[in-house]
């Protein structure tokens, strides 16, 4: 019931905010904020009670489920389920949702009620994506999150918003089409094999025999998710959409919407097609590595601060892709941490750039310079987020990237070593951004206030979570463990990838047989 509650609170909160907004814009913002706070409180309650129970589950790996028939004859059910991975990502959704509403507090002044309606419906769609266990329902949420996002960019965005919104829509819709084709293909293939027509995740999980048709289906899923992630080559919608979207839109896009791609790989593409994914693993890992380096290279080249931050997402999610397809426990856990860490650090940087734009009405790095002296608090926050983004140990991104690379090294030392160059390139773009905006000679420009209480509260929360994940990520690792375990046990693709690279077949912890009991202790 909690799961449906989350969706109802978010979507209903959006409608309520819209209704109330006709009467008072201030009340509208508060309704949206409170709805998301209620979500977060609910999620923390779930997490705490799960942890208190010592991780005991009714039906591993699911913490919570609800299941109602929806369109019976077609085998479509309203089936939601939450495991550790979903819990983490939905919590991130609520957290960044609160940050987005807070960041829009003074930025958005037009069509305020409609803005909060679209924002909350995007968030509801995103939560639905992270929870759906029926593929038809999943696709429903997938589209639900897309359409409001299109309006968010197209209505409240910056100068080039219309073109960017089109581009975003065409790319993701194209990907969505392939995904839908994949889902339908799988549905019919399954029906032909078993005689049961079902979109149920558990039903479809039984695995697909190797065939070129199955490979095509897997490719449909892969491409659908790859556009979202985005995998390098399919990434060119991202900088436009992220740059032109309003701050809240950028935070949701980078922090959450890209994560749905990664989530799709972890939840669907790999478990549904283990064998077919194995054939693709080495190619995907190479794409991930290219993404890490090419994204960082492009980020450095930009003159628009927001575009620079946008390109860093390609680099960060390259680590996620690499980790997901390296497929061992370390790499998968690392990829999950990367998803959370990227949401926080890049989301935070988007809020910084948004705050700058609100104050100076420009994002161009050659028009801004030496801001530290006039707005030192924002400088400090930006420095922290940039340093987190370049992977400083003790902060969240490092834990994720280091685990991914350690895991990858066991599969392919060469790719891990090349991907590690991302450490150097990420430091170049991160510190370059700080240099161009906050350091150097002071420009004479209009007086601007430093970060206020509302903004400090947002950044304070983000910074606190980044430090927490950096120095003690264990609660997150433990929460994600059941999901990772079931992935690893089904993941024959690891071995194949290892074979193709002609390296050791097993990850080190499998060789030494680490005591699993120890891992569970918190």
């Amino acid at each position: 019931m909690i799961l449906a509650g989350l969706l109802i609170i978010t979507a209903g909160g959006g409608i309520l905010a819209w209704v109330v907004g006709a009467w008072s814009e201030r009340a509208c913002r508060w309704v949206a904020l409170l709805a998301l706070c209620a979500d977060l409180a609910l999620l923390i309650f779930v997490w705490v009670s799960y942890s208190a129970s010592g991780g005991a589950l009714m039906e591993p790996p699911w913490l919570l489920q609800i299941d109602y028939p929806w369109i019976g004859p077609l085998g479509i059910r309203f089936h939601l389920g939450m495991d550790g991975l979903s819990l983490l990502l939905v919590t991130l959704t609520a957290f960044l949702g609160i940050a987005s509403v807070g960041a829009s507090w003074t930025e958005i002044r037009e069509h305020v009620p409609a803005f909060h309606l679209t924002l909350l419906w995007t968030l509801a769609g995103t939560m639905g994506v992270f929870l759906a266990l029926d593929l038809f329902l999943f696709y429903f949420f997938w589209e639900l999150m897309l359409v409001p996002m299109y309006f968010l960019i197209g209505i409240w965005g910056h100068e080039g918003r219309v073109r960017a919104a089109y581009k975003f829509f065409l790319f993701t819709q194209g990907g969505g089409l392939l995904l839908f084709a994949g889902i339908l293909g799988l549905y019919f293939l399954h029906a032909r094999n078993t005689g049961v027509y079902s979109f149920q995740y558990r039903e479809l999980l039984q695995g697909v025999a190797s065939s070129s048709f199955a490979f095509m289906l897997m490719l449909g899923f892969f491409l659908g998710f790859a556009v979202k992630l985005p995998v390098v080559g399919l990434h060119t919608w991202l900088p436009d959409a992220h740059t032109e979207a309003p701050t809240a839109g950028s935070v949701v896009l980078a922090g959450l919407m890209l994560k749905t791609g990664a989530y799709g790989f972890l939840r669907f593409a790999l478990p549904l097609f283990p064998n077919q994914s194995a054939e693709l693993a080495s190619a995907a890992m190479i794409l991930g590595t290219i993404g890490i380096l090419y994204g960082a290279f492009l980020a450095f080249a930009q003159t628009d601060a927001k575009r620079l931050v946008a390109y860093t997402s390609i680099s960060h999610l390259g680590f996620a892709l690499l980790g997901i397809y390296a497929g061992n426990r370390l790499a998968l856990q690392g990829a999950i941490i990367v998803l959370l860490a990227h949401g926080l650090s890049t989301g935070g940087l988007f809020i910084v750039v948004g705050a700058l734009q609100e104050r100076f009405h420009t994002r161009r790095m050659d028009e801004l310079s030496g801001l530290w002296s006039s707005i030192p608090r924002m400088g400090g926050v930006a420095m922290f987020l940039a340093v987190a983004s370049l992977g400083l140990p003790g902060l969240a991104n490092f834990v994720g990237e280091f685990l991914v690379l350690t895991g990858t090294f066991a599969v392919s030392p060469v790719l891990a070593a090349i991907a590690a160059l991302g450490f150097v390139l990420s430091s170049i773009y991160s510190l370059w951004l700080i240099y161009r905006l906050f350091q150097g000679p002071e420009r004479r420009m209009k007086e601007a206030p430093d970060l206020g209480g509302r903004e400090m509260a947002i950044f304070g929360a983000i910074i606190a979570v980044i430090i927490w994940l950096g120095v003690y990520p264990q609660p997150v690792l433990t929460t994600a463990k059941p999901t990772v375990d079931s992935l690893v046990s089904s993941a024959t693709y690891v071995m194949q990838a290892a074979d193709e690279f002609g390296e050791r077949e097993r990850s080190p912890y499998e060789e030494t047989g680490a005591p699993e009991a120890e891992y569970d202790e918190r």
Partner: protein
Amino acid sequence: MLSLLWLVPILPLVGFAILAVTAGQLARKAVSVIAVGAVSLSALIAIGITVAYTITAPAGTVYSQTLWQWMRVGNFAPAVALHLDALSMTMMVVVAFVSALIHIYSTGFMADDTGYSRFFAYMNLFVGAMLTLVLADNLLLLYLGWEGVGLCSYLLIGFWYRDPDNVRAALKAFFVTRIGDTAFAIGIFLLFTSLGTLNIPAVLDEISTYAPGSTLPTAAAALLLVGAMAKSAQLPLQTWLPDAMAGPTPVSALIHAATMVTAGVYLIARMHTLFVMAPAVLLAVAIIGAVTQLVASFSALTQYDIKRILAYSTISQIGYMFLALGVGAWAAAIYHFGTHAFFKAALFLGAGVVIKMLDEEHDIFKMGGLRHRYPLTFWAFLFAALTLAAVPPLTITFNSKDLILNQAFLSKGGRGLWILGLIGTFLTAAYTFRMVFVVFFGPAQSRPEKTPARSMVAPFVVLAFLGAIAGIPELLTAIFGSQNLSSFLRSALPGPTRDFPSADGPWLFQLIYVATALAGIAVAYLLYERAPQYTRSVVSTSVGSWLHRWWFADWGFDWLYQKLFVGPYVVLARINRNDVVDLFYKGLALISRVINGLLSSTVNGNVRWYVAAVAGGAVIVVGLVVIL
């Protein structure tokens, strides 16, 4: 006492946290109390721990303390845990003590700076990170400290951020060291993947079961060496350190002389078993060290900026430490680290006093004659310089470098390295006393009278004094054969002990070193104090000026890297700003638009055209049906 170990790295971090959260809202006095208090307290505890450790060494000579489990995935389980043995203790106490003195000095040096609180926040963070690095019991925590000090180095070099040159120097330092850090990280991946642990003693135990010279130890040692080279500014990754002098002088003293730059030396000493298993890499360490100290000495001879002279001198002295490591004289390397931390920090602090008194003048040729005006500064600086040049009996620490040279000579095939080291001894004395003569002797320049703050002079004099007498324990051994630092360090760093075959050996070699150093001083005296016109005429010859420019520009490394890496990266990035991949999609959009245009032009309202099109279409369809 030992159980207080965790406070040593934590206290400065707490100081940082307070200063960061208050963000410049505190009064200067409160900032000083918090920052200096945190580091001093940490230093006092470190000294207490040292005393407790030496009186009653813990079982197995190692004391470890686990604070919490950092993360655990399978057997990837690095903890936040501290490891105290003779090596880490020596490093810890030197780092904490020098840091405390330099913090006190900074309260005077930075007194008028607007970024007072920010400065001390960074400094405290640095001390916390450096102590974490030194005390870490596993490679991942060591890496955390390693990157943490790199970040602080960047923050403090670019402390005066309004000048783009400072920021560029800071970025250069960070990027070059990050290249090394990345190699180090790959080394960690390799070690973990092969050995299944990151705990340093466990790694060293495991690695000693491998055959010397086999692939794993060699590859891992080589990767770690690249990390150490970048951090310790050894050839060919030394280019960032001279530029790093853009930071405030206390930063140069603390980070870029006494502590952080020696982290590479510490890493190799800490992982010495690994390096012993990789003889080829160990030889590379020795050669890199010997060549670096020579190359940097030549550059030091040509600089005008007092801080750049000292920077090249630091590179050169760390070269000696690498030489010591390379011939397996671990204890000698750490001993030299300790004495160098004192006397080089003292030289920097002295330079800071001079620079401050002369209104930010860095050019030694615009100083001159300062010996009468600042006698205390002069004498302390002179003692530190004598320690650097290693001239007994005015300094008792002369033997820290000489030990290294002896060990190099006695090691197998080390004669060539020894000769390079000896040339370095001559050059060291020459560039050091070039600086002393030019700055403190000669005609005085008239300038407004200023007196240095007591908080600045006191730490400087203490460090210079300590540097000069730090060699007493070693000297006592030479005479009486008692317990000394080297044999104490040997409990953590077992290595070969090499002695001269005859009892006269040490004395004979000592004579050679002293004579070489004195010759260096004499040459500096002749060329810069007695007859500077000779210097000018040598430099004005074509070969002379060419060499001068070459050495002055750090042997052209910067130029080479600019052409090879920096330039191409920037240019390519600029060309590709709009992302070539997007051209494909732009092309798709263009094609659709063209087709759209073509098709729309068919909807032209011309009935004859429509009829013709329908007829043509019908013919084609019928034709297809017939053919198929």
